[in-house]
């Protein structure tokens, strides 16, 4: 299956941005017909390396050799012409156009050289579709197809332009588990057709499932290239981070106390008036972590918004420490002792243009000692921030550093520091480790378990099943706005996965 001659070689690639060396003499080699995973934490340099290959950046030093000949790409157009295709994490499709139109955009087939040959376009798309087993409807509007199908359109776009080296950038970040499996099938069939594939990811389990070889980057340097045989999640994690990584957090047995959060028959609608939470009831006690598992879009966002006062509740009740709070504003919820780590830290959790100190004060800026009678004391804000930065090990800047200048992990630490420092009784953690690297995930998991030991009631909502299984004392499965499964103690991933997709295990 693999011929011995590398189809692509990158030698000594170096790329510097102001203040940071993104790629430090990186060597990378791709054999024909192999699936090669590029593994590393956020900021390790994987995307930079591939952006150089794709012509979006110019390397400061080093060379790229494609099919034995040196290649210099001035732009993505050059790379595409040379047979390199890239599917980005954030799709670049036009929602109001059809699948076929999106695929042929820029290289439209024409009749008599001027008139767009729509039928011809659809035929070509159907051809490609059949050839590579990528089922799409050429006449469907992109805005109406699923995310998994949109990704297939992106792949077809690359194939239509004659790509035989495909770069996939974190492709499973936006897919459901089922769609991810389908993607792996597609990758294998592309491989069988002789395509060579580079798979950028930071997810260890995927890498072991799909890759032939794995290259690990850390802080801009290439650490190692290993074949899949013999590699384990632990060995890869160690290479990525540079030390032993605890992949499963140590959790002392639960000692739950009083009920701090009670949700009863909750009904919530989304912005379009569609009911997304359809009668949910559960409770969380002090000193326990309740995890809510589910595929994105089944009501998690609306549930979190309702519990934190950001969305109106149609019916039902929310009680915190016995107090009915279903009509509370976000401010009232905060004062009632509900902490919230939002799922989108950059949109909800932080004001990126504010300094760390100003962000930490986001809930408390109007209260003494930060302010008195409407007059702000910036010095106090800085003092408080300094303490918390030390306590929570926030790196990358001081109290006056702009929050937008921190890495994702450190931004999340600022958010977590702010929430925990207020000594909440209930902590709602929504996707707390989204977009974070292994080191930051490890820190956060440890922290959540610590807070659990402190007696806080923690509600964890996550799309990562591993995280739910690892941290939760009790697991609730959310499907189409309802709780379809409740588990305490040992439960298999398969069972939860089944419930997440709406299936139910038959009674034994």
């Amino acid at each position, binding site marked *: 299956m693999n011929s011995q001659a590398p189809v692509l070689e990158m030698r000594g690639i170096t790329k510097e941005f102001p203040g940071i060396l993104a790629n430090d003499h990186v060597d990378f080699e791709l054999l024909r017909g192999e699936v090669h995973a590029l593994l590393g934490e956020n900021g390790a340099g994987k995307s930079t390396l591939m952006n150089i290959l794709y012509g979006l950046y110019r390397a400061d030093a080093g060379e790229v050799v494609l099919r034995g000949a040196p290649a210099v790409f001035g732009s993505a157009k050059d790379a595409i012409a040379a047979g390199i295709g890239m599917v980005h994490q954030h799709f670049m499709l036009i929602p109001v156009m059809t699948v076929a139109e999106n695929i042929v955009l820029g290289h439209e087939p024409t009749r008599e050289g001027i008139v767009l040959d729509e039928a011809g376009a659809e035929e070509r798309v159907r051809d490609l579709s059949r050839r590579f087993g990528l089922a799409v409807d050429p006449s469907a509007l992109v805005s109406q197809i699923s995310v998994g199908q949109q990704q297939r359109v992106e792949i077809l776009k690359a194939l239509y332009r004659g790509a035989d080296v495909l770069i996939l950038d974190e492709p499973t970040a936006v897919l459901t588990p089922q769609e991810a499996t389908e993607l792996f099938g597609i990758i294998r069939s592309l491989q069988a057709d002789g395509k060579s594939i580079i798979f950028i990811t930071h997810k260890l389990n995927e890498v072991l499932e799909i890759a032939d070889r794995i290259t690990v980057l850390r802080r801009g340097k290439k650490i190692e290239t290993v074949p899949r045989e013999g590699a384990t999640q632990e060995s890869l994690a160690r290479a990525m981070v540079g030390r032993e990584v605890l992949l499963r957090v140590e959790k002392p047995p639960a000692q739950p106390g009083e009920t701090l959060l009670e949700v009863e028959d909750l009904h919530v609608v989304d912005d379009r008036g569609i009911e997304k939470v359809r009668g949910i009831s559960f409770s969380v006690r002090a000193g326990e972590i309740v995890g809510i598992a589910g595929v994105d879009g089944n009501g998690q966002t609306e549930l979190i918004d309702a519990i934190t006062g950001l969305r109106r509740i149609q019916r039902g009740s929310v009680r915190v420490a016995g107090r009915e709070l279903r009509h509370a504003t976000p401010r009232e919820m905060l004062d009632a002792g509900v902490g919230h780590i939002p799922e989108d830290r950059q949109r909800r*959790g932080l004001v990126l243009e504010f300094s760390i100190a100003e962000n930490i004060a986001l809930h408390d800026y109007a209260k003494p000692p930060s302010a008195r009678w409407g007059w*702000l004391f910036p010095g106090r804000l800085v003092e408080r921030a300094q303490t918390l930065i030390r306590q929570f090990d926030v790196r990358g800047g001081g109290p006056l550093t702009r929050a937008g200048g921190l890495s994702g992990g450190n931004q999340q630490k600022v958010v977590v520091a702010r929430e925990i420092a207020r000594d909440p009784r209930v902590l709602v953690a929504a996707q707390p480790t989204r977009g974070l690297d292994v080191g930051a995930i490890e820190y956060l998991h440890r922290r959540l378990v610590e807070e659990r030991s402190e007696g806080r009631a923690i509600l964890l909502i996550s799309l990562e099943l591993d995280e739910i299984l690892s941290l939760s004392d009790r697991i609730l499965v959310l499907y189409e706005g309802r709780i379809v499964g409740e588990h305490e103690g040992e439960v298999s991933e398969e069972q939860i996965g089944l419930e997440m997709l709406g299936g139910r295990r038959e009674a034994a």
Partner: protein
Amino acid sequence: MAEPAREGRVPESPEQAASTGTLAARISLRQRSGGIVVPVLTAVVAFLIGGAVVAATGHNPLVAYRDIFNGAGLNWFGHPTTDTALTASYNLSQTLLQTTTLILTGLAVAFAFRCGMFNIGGQGQYFVGLFVANWIGASWATMAAGPHILLGIAAATAAGAVWAGIAGFLKATVGAHEVISTIMLNWIAIWGGTYLFGDGGLLQNSQNKALPISNDVAPGAQLPVVWGDQQLQGLHVGFFVALAALVVFWLILNRTTLGYEVRAVGFNPDAAAYGGISVRKNLISAMAISGAFAGLAGGLDMLGYLYRYGVSDIPVSAVGFLGIAVALLGRNTALGVGLSAFLFGALLFGTTHGLQSGAIDPQLASNLTYIIQGLIVLFVGADVLILYLWNSRRRLRRRAATA
């Protein structure tokens, strides 16, 4: 194992840096990227092109600019001879008179920008302040000067605040875009004034019913003059009020909880809401404060040197719109607005006054003003272009190094 501090960040994608974010966030980004260099460069490029236009009409641009300079009274800062000293001091006092107004209309736009909103209604808010000040100043002629002035100024400021507050309220409640509502409110103010000062209007001159002009502001309500002659339109105390306003602007934004909320809402309304801040309340407050600055400008102008206003004066006034250019060039900061207002004030008075006497055609003189103003606004809007030109030096240097 110590982690080395990482000062820099790898852009997530080549488009990342200036792509998303709110209006205030983008402006803040540009501010950080260009510092003071970009506004200065913008003004310089605008002047260069203006000079080229002058040259194209057959006149000497250097002479034209010297005339503008003298016309604005800027030669007063050097060592003027005894015969030019008097004109220079008059000219400078007039320039500062214009600057007073522009500082305030500029602050009006800048404050709204900091909350993420476009206040295009400075002109209308200015007018409303002006009309109210005229009404109060012309009434109760027997009132003592101190309270009379204070009442007039306070009412003008409040009127501007209410006028802009309407737009803020509409945005907060039904989501009406403030650009549209403030422009509409401008027109309401303009035609309202035309009616008020026109034939049979409520504020029309009570002595001479044939003239579509307002009453005069009573002498007791006129602002004291600090430089020049009261009869010859000297510089009034309002100038110091405007300077104080710059300080107040800075203090509100950086030292009050209101300012914190306004900035948070301007940068990221979602995070502000999550933090417990009422986005609605702040949209209204920010617009009201914004309008207060513009209303104050109207009040100071009326009680400071205009003393009366006619229907024909209304279409000619453009200080509200110039305030937009002032705020943009000044990057919505207190210091920037101050300096930018001075530049525009000098330009306004220098071109209309200085060029008239010179060798340049009077028609061209006033058009030159418009050209330069327009160019500045254009380049301020296209400051990405200026940034590109500025950064291209660095790019060329690096390309030469690696070659």
